[in-house]
């Protein structure tokens, strides 16, 4: 299994970005999320909401010479100015988020349960951690995409029957994009819709705790 292909962060970001539909307002969580900013599919116009108070920021700049310390995304990366962008305070930002005005959010995950519970903020064994905007985003966005490696560094499943870590929000995740699969969470359970080339359904199931429903349209991840 060590030799099998797994998507790297950039490739996962690219796959996630394919979910962005024309006209959507999307919030990108810190981490892999913010990388999606640069991969909006050709011909689609997407408005990014950054919880630090901006709508409509452009792609991350490519050199410090273009960077503006007052034009940052939520991950602290300098973004390009765009026509149509606007700015607001933190309370207004979370009016948008909690008030269900965001079409899609892309969050990192430590664990996701088969019911769509998400755990992504606590530092295990350290008694604290970083909730940040994750709880508001997880329950406020109309659609929640979690992007994460399929297993922990030691190879244990991160998609579980029940989360063991403190929850971010219960029953909130709609889509899981991992380095080996694309899984949709439905009322019937976890539906495996896409798989990375070189992996079999059995191999993906072996590193996933709950039972996967294989989509009749199962296909290889395309970017």
């Amino acid at each position, binding site marked *: 299994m060590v030799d099998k292909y797994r998507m790297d962060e950039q490739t996962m970001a690219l796959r996630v970005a394919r979910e962005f539909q024309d006209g959507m307002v999307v919030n990108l969580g810190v981490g892999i999320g913010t990388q999606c900013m640069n991969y909006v599919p050709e011909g689609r116009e997407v408005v990014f909401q*950054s*919880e*630090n*108070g*901006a709508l409509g*920021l452009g792609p*991350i*700049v490519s050199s*410090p010479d273009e*960077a*503006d*310390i*007052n*034009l*940052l995304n*939520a991950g*602290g*990366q*300098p973004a390009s100015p765009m026509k149509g962008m606007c*700015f*607001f*305070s*933190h*309370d207004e*930002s*979370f009016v948008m*988020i*909690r008030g269900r005005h965001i079409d899609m959010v892309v969050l990192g995950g430590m664990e996701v349960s088969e019911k769509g519970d998400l755990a992504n903020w606590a*530092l295990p064994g*350290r*008694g*604290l*951690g*970083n*909730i*940040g*905007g*994750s*709880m*508001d985003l997880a*329950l*406020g966005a109309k659609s929640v995409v979690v992007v994460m490696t399929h297993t922990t560094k030691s190879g244990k499943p991160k998609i579980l029957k029940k989360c063991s870590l*403190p*929850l*971010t*929000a*219960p029953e909130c995740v709609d889509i899981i994009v991992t380095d080996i699969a694309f899984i949709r969470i439905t009322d019937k359970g976890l539906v495996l819709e896409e798989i990375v080339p070189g992996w079999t359904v059995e191999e993906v199931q072996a590193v996933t705790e709950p039972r996967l429903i294989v989509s009749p349209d199962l296909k290889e991840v395309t970017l």
Partner: protein
Amino acid sequence: MAINKIVDSFEEAIADIRDGATIMIGYFGHAGDAPCWLIRALAEKGTKNLTIISNMPGWGRTLIPAFREMVKGLIRNPSWWDDAGLLVENGQVRKAVVSWASGMSPAHVNDFEKRYQAGEVELEMVPQGTLAERIRAGKAGIPAFYVPTGAGTVVEEGKEVRVFNGRRHILEHALTADFALIHAHKADRWGNLVYQGTSRTFNATMAGAAKVTIAEVDEIVELGELDPEAVVTPNIYVDRVVARPLEELRKW
């Protein structure tokens, strides 16, 4: 004779902050939005037993150099960047009410976390949107409100739970403070404020939520120079205005 909220120095601006005060400190977590000079003045004054309300207890001088290094291929951060971490490292903070308690990654441990593990500081973790809303509620005369955020998680513990529209909500209470230290771009003598880009964050939210709001600004302009349609923080929320030293801003 005339309203003049301009104060000449950072020392003077914070002179009446006493030991045991509760202080809101406005920023999200980057160099562009922190009231760096006010924080340094408070560090110099050495006021103790502070409760700070802020998005985070700060990277501090423990982590700002690492952060600077991490992002240097993307952005140059100014030499004068400091955050509330400086107060924590100075042993001035007794309690922090924050949404983001630790470093920027599990590998980055800030001084607050070390002190927390040692039992030296108290921590109240609040989801970021709830933190912003509790501060606004403090400003708005709303003592408490219900939110879905945190329902079904540890945030719910010890709180009143109530179902609205078939969904669990928890009761959250307003936050107020003795002082709010914020950063804005420009001010006039009445205390009207404008910001730049993504630097409004908790600054604009905290303005007016404390008994005394002190704004550190890049520039003070004449009354009437700010576009009335573009004022972000109305003057009523601001008590004192103090300007950053132009030569240091220019140097950077």
